[in-house]
Every structure is written in C-alpha cells, then in structure tokens.
C-alpha cells in the first residue's frame, strides 16, 4: 500500500481520482490508503504532482 509524506502533500485529492481500486480517501489528516483494496499498481505514485507518495509494506 502507499503512504503520503504529510509535509509534501498539498491535499489536492488528485491521487484519489486516479486510483483504479478506490483505495484512497482524503481525510482531515491527509490521504488514507485502504490496504485491503490497494494492489500496489503505483499509478497514484506516478501521478502525484509533488511526489508526496511512496510505497510501504502493509
């Protein structure tokens, strides 16, 4: 699954729109990834305009 760097993330939600698994949600504290849904395709990571996303182990 993925994790966002809260210091870099601009909370624009664009990653939520490109995730084919609907695994991401923008919450008050930042982007939340549902590890059950995420299939590690890296699309969001490639897309994020500011490079705030990285892959992490579940």
């Amino acid at each position, binding site marked *: 699954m993925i994790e966002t760097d809260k210091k870099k993330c*601009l909370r*624009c939600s664009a990653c939520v729109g490109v995730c084919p698994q*609907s695994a991401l*949600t923008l919450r008050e504290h930042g982007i939340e990834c549902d590890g059950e849904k995420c299939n590690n395709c890296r699309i969001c990571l490639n897309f994020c*305009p500011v490079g705030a996303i990285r892959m992490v182990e579940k």
Partner: protein
Amino acid sequence: MNIEREYDIIVIGAGPGGSGAALAAAKKGMKVLLLEKRQEIGAPKRCAEGLSMSAMGRMGIERDDLWIRREIIGATIYAPNGEHIGVDYKDGPEGYILERKVFDKCLAEKAAGLGAKVLAKAEVTRLLKEDGKVCGVEVEFEGEKKEIKAKIVIAADGVESKIAREAGLDTTLKLVDIASGAQFEMTNVDIDPDRIEMYFGNDIAPGGYVWIFPKGENIANIGIGVRKPYAKEKAIDYLKRFIESRSGLKKGSIIEVNSGGVPVGGLMENMVTDNLIVVGDAAHQANPIHGGGMGEAWVGGRIAGEMAAEAIKANDLSKKFLGKYNKLWWEKRGNKLQKLVKLREVMESFSDEDLNWLVDYLKGEDLIEFARSSGFGKFAKILMKKPKLIKLARKLL
C-alpha cells in the same frame, strides 16, 4: 443548524458543478441540500483562475467586481525555441482572471439565494441505498454521522469523485486523460499583466503546457500541467525548472502553492444511474485542450439540476428517465469537447521541431479568426503543408 431528514435533491460538493446543480433545482422549486466537505468553499484553490468570455457567456452569469482580478486582452503562445505568436482581441476583453475562492462562494451564494440549503464542513461518507437504489447520503458534520434521505443525489464531488463509483459508475481516469498540475501564485514577478502566456515543448511540459495567468501588475498564477507517460518527472519539478530559468520569475515570492488533477478526456457516455447523476470534473466535463472546467461544470450542473427536478415532478427517478441528461449534455457540450479530445491526441504527437514550425507558420495567419473558427478544417490544411504531419492532419477531418 436546521438540517432536515429529507430533501428532494442532495448535491455533493460545492464547486461550480454542485452550485450550478443546486441553483437550477432550487429554481424549479425543489427542496435542495448542498453539502461541501471543506471548511471554506473554494479554498484552497485547484485552479489557474482563468475564465474566458465565451465560458462566462455559457454560464449565463454577469461579471462581478467581487471576483474579477484582471481583464485579459490577449494571449501569447511560445514554441519550444522561444518563438511566439500573439493573439490580440481588439473588441473588449477576451476573458478574466478570477479570485477563485470568492467566485466559488458567490456561486454557492446564488444557489442559497434561490432557496437551496448550503452546508460547509459536511462530508458525505457514503451513499444510502434501498433495494440497491440510492436513497440518500450519510454525512459527517461536527463529528457526528447523520443519515439524510433524498429522491435524487447529484454527485459534483470533483476529480476525486468516489460517490459515483459507489453507485456503480466507473469514473476512474486513465493517466493519459488526466493532467498532473502544480502551480505557484507568485508576486513581485516580471510579467505581461494584460495577457496570458502559454509555453509548449516536450522538455518544458511534456503532454501539457506551462501557463502564466496574471492577477495584477506583478502577480500571477504560474503553473504547469503534464501527462504520463510523456512526463518523466513530477509536475512540480518541471515547473521549478521553468521558473529558475527566467530571472523575471525567479526573483519573485511565492504566496500560495497548489496542485491538482485536470481531466482532459475520458468523456462519459453515461453519467446517470437510478436516482443519481454525476456532473463536472467528477464526470470529466472539462476542456481537453486547456483544462478549463469551471464553466463546463456549472453548465453540466445546471442541466443535471433541471433534469432532476423534471424527474421528481414526473415521479420517475429511473436511469432511463435521467438518461435525458446524457443526451442534453452531449448535444450542448459533449460533441464539441469530444472533437477537442481528437485535437489533443493530434497535438500530443507533435515533436518540438513540429511545434516550432507550426508557431512560425501561424505567424502569418489571422489568429483571431483562426481561434474562433468552429471546425478544424483550416488547421488540418496547415498541417498538410508538412509531409510528416499529413497523417495527423487526416485525423482531424
């Protein structure tokens, strides 16, 4: 807050799409609730704040000094080699640069003025369903979850739309159909305060462009949209490099940082299901060439609001009845935007050398007439002059 347990129509998201839908439905006498998850409608902006006169005309709203920062009288388009062409509109301004957060609030205010109930910092957490059909929403407000019923739900939840997916409509955007955008609002920069500037090139902004949209004498939104697979780096890295390479920009100060995704394709043939309609960015209703979507969202929203009211009056909330919205939207906007998707596809296969050639060639043309012509026939004819581009030109005819 006197939120009732039931409304005719609940609209999710108070961007231009949601406010347009709420306004149109309220105008038809519907009981409408417009829910926005952010604490301030319109902020932070995800926008370069440009609105053309033609888009404003389609929206059917009057200009208001509250939200206009700058009148734009022309555009300068730069080829990768730095050569440029100017488009000058001699008969009045061609568009405006807005203060988007004021604009979005004013649109929501218009909807509220007609009787819609608007509520900020109220996030829809899921759809309510009965026999598999949408019948309302669960909303989180002041730390509490509440269920509110509605006959029709309009999803105007922007590029991050999840509501439509929950109702079974796949709104996921393919990477090629969404630009990755980053922007700095900068002050104390040397810019042309009366014209927008656009810079093209496969090193400058692969699959997109850099824009400078002036908000005043020395303040502007300086941003970029790029697309995968063309872009090898992050949008913000290309943008930083662009600014660093220009002394008149490099010396400036950053007063706001923005990012976002801009739909530039993936128009949806079907945007409805039983009891639910999708509008605006959520339905990918944005201009595939320049990414402008405020006007499109408002227009899509208004059509949806009117259709929803009609459906409720006819007591038929079925997918079939609501499908009239698909038809109306495609007639009014979709067919035009679909043509622009084609143009985008042709333009993205231009090499830098092609772009340089094109800008050089277009110098001798009457660009205003060119920009206002409706078909691509004239453009295709120009491309035909370069043997390498003939194949591409044919795609436009």
